[in-house]
C-alpha cells in the first residue's frame, strides 16, 4: 500500500492486545487531509483505542513492522512540542478539578505555541466565541455542566492548533456525548469547517446519523478490525450496520440533502 501524498496520519500493522484480549487486530490505514473521517462501531470495538494510538497517547503491542507517521514523517522524527502544534485531541472526558477559570483552561492550549500576549488573547477570544463559551470566560471551570466543559476543552484544542498552518490533525473522541442538539451540530460544523480548510479530522461517534451527515469517510470497526471503509453511502449500508450492531435498520436518502438517514426498527 503506497502512502498517498495528502496523508496526515499513516499507520501500518497496528496491533493492541490488553490482558490477553485482542483490541486491535492488524490495522493499517491512511487518514487524509481535508476529510472528516468518522470512526464508528459497537462498544468495545476498539474505536477509542485506535484514536489513542493515532494520537500517540498509548502504544500498540509491539510487532516488527508496525509504524505510525504524521505527514509522511515517521513518529520518531517529531519532537513532542512540534507534534503538539499540529495534532490536537479532544478527550472523551477530563478529570480537571482545580478551579481554573474557563479562559485559563482555554489558555492552557497556548502551551506548545510561542505567541505574543496580544496574539494569544486574540486567538483565545476567537476560540471561546467559536464554541459559544465567551460568556462563560470568567466562570470557574469545575462548576460548569458536562456539555459546557466539553465545549471549553474543544476551544482549548482549537487554540492549540491555531498555528498549525497547512498541517493540522484534529481528533475528537465522542465530542457530542454531553451536548444539546444545537451544540452538537455547532461542534460538528466546526470539525467540517476545519476539514474544508485542509485539516484531517477524525471523530469517534456513536450517532450514525450525525456521522452520515458530516463525514467524508466512515470507518466501521468491529472486534478490532475494520469492517467497512468508505463514503457514508458505501459504509453505512443496512447490511453493514445490521452485521456490526446486530440491529435491523433501514437506510434512506435524506429528503432534502444528499446523505443517508438511518432508521432503526
Amino acid at each position: 500500500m503506497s502512502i498517498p501524498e495528502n496523508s496526515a496520519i499513516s499507520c501500518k500493522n497496528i496491533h493492541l492486545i490488553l490482558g490477553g484480549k485482542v483490541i486491535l487486530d492488524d490495522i493499517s490505514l491512511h487518514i487524509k487531509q481535508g476529510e472528516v473521517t468518522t470512526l464508528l462501531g459497537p462498544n468495545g470495538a476498539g474505536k477509542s483505542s485506535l484514536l489513542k494510538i493515532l494520537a500517540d497517547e498509548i502504544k500498540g503491542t509491539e510487532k516488527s513492522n508496525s509504524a505510525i507517521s504524521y505527514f509522511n514523517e515517521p513518529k520518531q522524527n517529531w519532537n513532542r512540542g512540534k507534534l503538539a502544534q499540529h495534532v490536537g485531541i479532544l478527550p472523551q472526558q477530563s478529570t480537571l478539578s482545580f478551579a481554573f477559570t474557563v479562559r485559563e483552561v482555554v489558555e492552557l492550549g497556548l502551551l506548545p505555541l510561542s505567541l505574543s500576549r496580544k496574539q494569544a488573547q486574540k486567538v483565545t477570544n476567537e476560540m471561546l466565541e467559536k464554541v459559544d463559551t465567551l460568556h462563560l470566560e470568567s466562570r470557574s471551570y469545575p462548576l460548569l455542566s458536562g456539555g459546557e466543559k466539553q465545549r471549553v476543552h474543544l476551544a482549548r484544542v482549537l487554540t492549540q492548533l491555531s498555528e498549525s498552518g497547512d498541517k493540522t490533525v484534529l481528533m475528537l473522541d465522542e465530542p457530542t456525548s454531553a451536548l444539546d442538539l444545537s451544540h452538537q451540530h455547532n461542534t460538528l460544523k466546526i470539525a467540517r469547517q476545519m476539514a474544508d480548510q485542509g485539516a484531517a479530522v477524525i471523530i469517534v461517534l456513536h450517532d450514525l446519523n450525525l456521522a452520515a451527515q458530516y463525514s467524508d469517510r466512515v470507518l466501521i470497526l468491529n472486534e478490532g478490525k475494520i469492517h467497512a471503509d468508505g463514503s457514508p453511502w458505501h459504509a453505512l449500508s443496512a447490511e453493514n450496520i445490521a452485521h456490526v450492531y446486530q440491529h435491523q435498520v433501514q437506510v434512506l436518502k435524506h429528503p432534502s440533502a444528499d446523505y443517508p438517514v438511518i432508521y432503526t426498527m
Partner: protein
Amino acid sequence: MFLRQFPFYVLILSAIFLMVLVATFSIVIGPMTISVADSFKGLTPWANELPAHIQLVIHQIRLPRTIVCLLVGAILAISGTVMQGLFRNPLAEPGIIGVSAGAGLGAAIAIVAFSSIAMQYPLLMNIAAVPLFAFLGGALTTLLVYSLGTSKNGTSVAVMLLAGVAIGALSGAGIGYLNFIATDQMLRDLSLWSMGSLAGATWSSIALATVSLVILLTIFMRNAKGLNALLLGEAEAGHLGVNTQKLKRRMILLTAAGVGITVSISGMIGFIGLIVPHLGRMLTGPDHKVLLPLSALMGALLLTIADMIARIAVTPAELPVGIVTAIIGAPFFLYLLFQQRGRM
C-alpha cells in the same frame, strides 16, 4: 470558593508587608523582653551598642530562628503546592500522605547510624548526612504512594490517604525502635523529629535552607506551565507537548528533597503544605506561575506565626511547633475532606 478579585502584585506586596511585620514581631517576642527599638537596632550595624546578652539573644537565637521559620515555611508550602499539582488533588500533602514520616525515618536512621561521626563532624552530619537520608526516605515514600494511588484517571484519594496511614505507622515503628536502641545523646536529637521544632536553628541550617529554597523555587517556576497542563490529566498534558514522565520524575524528586531538607532542619511540621496552597488557589487560582511565589510568601508567614504561638502559648516552656500547625491544620484538612467526600 472563588475570591479572585485582587491583582497579583497587590497580593504579593501585601504578603511581603505582612511577612516583614511578623518577622519583626518574631524577633521582639520571647521569654526575655527586648524592646521593638532594640530589636531593630540589633539588625543594624549599631548592634554592638546594645548590652552583650541582648546581642547574643538577637543574633544567636531569635534572628536565626526567625529566618529558618521563613525559609522552612516557604519550602514546605511550595513543596505542598507542587505535590498537590502532581497528584492532581488538593489533599496531597507531604505530612498526610506519609512523605514527612518517611523522611523522618530516614533522618532518624542517619542520626543513629552515624552517631559516631556526629561528635567529630557535626556540620557534615547536620547539612549532609541527615538531609540526604531524609531526602531518600521522602523520595521512596513519594514514589510508593504515587505508584499505589495514581492511575490514568487521576489519584485515588482513599488509596493515597491509606498509604499515608500505613507508611506513617511503619515509620513510627521504625523511629520507635531507633528510640529504643538509641543512647541519650541520640535520643535528644531524635525527639526533635516527632513533633518538629525550630529551636535548633543555626546559621548553617539557614545556609542549607536558603540554597534549597532558591533551587527549588527556580526549577518549580520553570516547570510551572507543565504543572498547569498536568492538572488536566497526564494524557492531555502529553498531547500539549509536555514530557510527563520526565516532569513527574523531576517533581517527585524535588518535592522529596524539599521535605527531606525541612525535616532534617526542623523535624516533621505538618499541614503548612496543605493550608497554604489551598488559600493561595482561593486568592489567585491554580496557575502555578503565580501560585508558587505567593505560596512561598504565605508559607513563610504562616510558619513564623505558628512558631510565635509555640513560643508564647505556654511560657516559660515552649510547645513543639508541629502541635500548633496540627491544631490549625487538622480541622482545615477535615473541612477539605468534607468537601471532597462525594469524589472519594
